[in-house]
């Protein structure tokens, strides 16, 4: 992409962001809003600098939980999807349960998991997995079932076995769907970990927020918000980059005809 093209592509988003931040700064200063209510962006930056020593440790904990939970979600989601795609009655039995599971609020699940599994890292990993599992499972099931019938027939007509049909058609056809689910799960992974930590933890951004909140350091809460957003974007970008490597045909130029 040319430099001009890049400006056209990303310029509007950056422009809006900068304008909003500036407006925020101006309004907070002009109205003399107390910092414990809404800190100005410049104060948030200062607060971030203050906590530069303790923050990396919390980030490490949260990111570790998010990644571990995401991996657990990938393994369990893909496995369940495979089972649901190949056994119709299992699919009919599990689908409603899956949907119901998504309607139980996280703030209810998280304390329960802490009661059952203690204050360690594991319940947080589980919260992330519970959140991330659903988009991956549902998308992958649909991908496995959506394989083009013409393609599976073609493989059969050429003498291909059921296994070859799975390997050459169904699995590659499901991959873009799987990555669609993974991107959604990756977006929510950090959030899941933070909610898990909120309930009780010895380290992590959730704990950092709780502490900042109880001492009315709203500026530090905002620091955490910025960090969480950045981490979420990073995980999303990682999933996107992985998709580009694994399913390159999705990114090939579309036919001009």
């Amino acid at each position, binding site marked *: 992409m040319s430099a001009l093209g890049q400006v056209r592509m990303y310029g509007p988003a950056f422009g809006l962001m900068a304008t909003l931040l500036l407006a925020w700064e101006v309004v907070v200063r002009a109205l003399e809003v107390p910092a414990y209510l809404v800190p100005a962006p410049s104060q948030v930056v200062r607060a971030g600098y203050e906590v530069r020593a303790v923050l990396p440790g919390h980030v490490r904990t949260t990111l570790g939980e998010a990644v571990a939970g995401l991996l657990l979600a990938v393994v369990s989601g893909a496995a369940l999807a495979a089972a649901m795609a190949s056994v119709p009655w299992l699919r009919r039995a599990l689908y409603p349960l899956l949907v119901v599971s998504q309607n139980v609020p996280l703030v209810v699940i998280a304390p329960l998991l802490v009661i059952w599994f203690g204050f360690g890292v594991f319940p947080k990993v589980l919260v992330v997995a519970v959140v991330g599992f659903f988009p991956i499972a549902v998308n992958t099931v649909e991908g496995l079932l959506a394989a*083009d019938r*013409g*393609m599976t*027939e*073609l*493989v*059969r*007509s*050429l*003498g*291909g076995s059921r296994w*070859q049909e799975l390997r*050459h*058609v169904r699995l*590659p*056809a499901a*991959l873009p769907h799987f990555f669609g689910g993974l991107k959604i799960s990756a977006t929510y992974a950090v959030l899941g970990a933070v909610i898990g930590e909120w309930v009780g933890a010895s380290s992590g951004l959730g704990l950092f927020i709780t502490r900042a909140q109880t001492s009315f350091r709203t500026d530090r809460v905002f620091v955490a918000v910025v960090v969480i957003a950045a981490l979420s974007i990073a995980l999303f970008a990682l999933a996107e980059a992985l998709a580009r490597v694994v*399913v*390159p*045909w*999705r990114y*090939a*130029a*579309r*036919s*001009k*005809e």
Partner: protein
Amino acid sequence: MATSPAIEVRALSHAFTGERTVEALRDVNLEVAAGSFASLIGRSGCGKSTLLRVLAGLIEPTDGAARLNGEDVRGRPGHAAYMPQEDTLLPWRRALGNAVLGLELQGVPRSEAEGLARPLLERFGLGEFMRAWPAELSGGMRQRLALARTFLARGPLLLDEPFGALDALTRQEMQIWLQEVWTAPTADERRTALLVTHDIDEALVLSDVVYVMSDRPGTILERIEVPLARPRALTVVTSPAFAGLKARVLEALVRGRS
């Protein structure tokens, strides 16, 4: 020495059972000699695709015989080079990978299969696009690639309206092109082919023999030999001999109207 025909269909009938039974084919008899090109022409929905799918081993017929090179293929895929109506290229395989699919499924090592595919893709005008994804190819190129994949697979060619999705001009060009690649290089090396189409010109330009099928339930109305010399040019469709043959096909099609 009398050899058995490469494609042989005897008293074949098929009905689809479901909420209501649909009789698709009734007492179809057809044969294609080894190394010749035959077409099966009929209106949409007459069951001609069903016949092709029976020969590809994808449908087990209710009654009758279906043999390829003397081998019973009812419900037994893997004996034909079948090309479905859509090009059905696998989007996750590059052009070369799509071309070798049949060989690969038949257990030919990938490097050997690619060695066979490369010269064919050159001949099919895809030499520069072997590394391209199907999404990067034009409609005509996709069709040529699907044909290359079909040519590389074992067994008689079974082509189900290969040019159905193309615009009229590209379609004519592709017919002449297919006629050329099929005719070359020597008569002994020609592949047995059965083409399904509803385009009369297409059937006549390409074939040695044309079978005309009635509306559903499909049955063979007439077998018409096409004695036009090969190679045939685009202008063959304007010759008096061609017009005479076309009239015969049309008359048979009108008779077969249900």
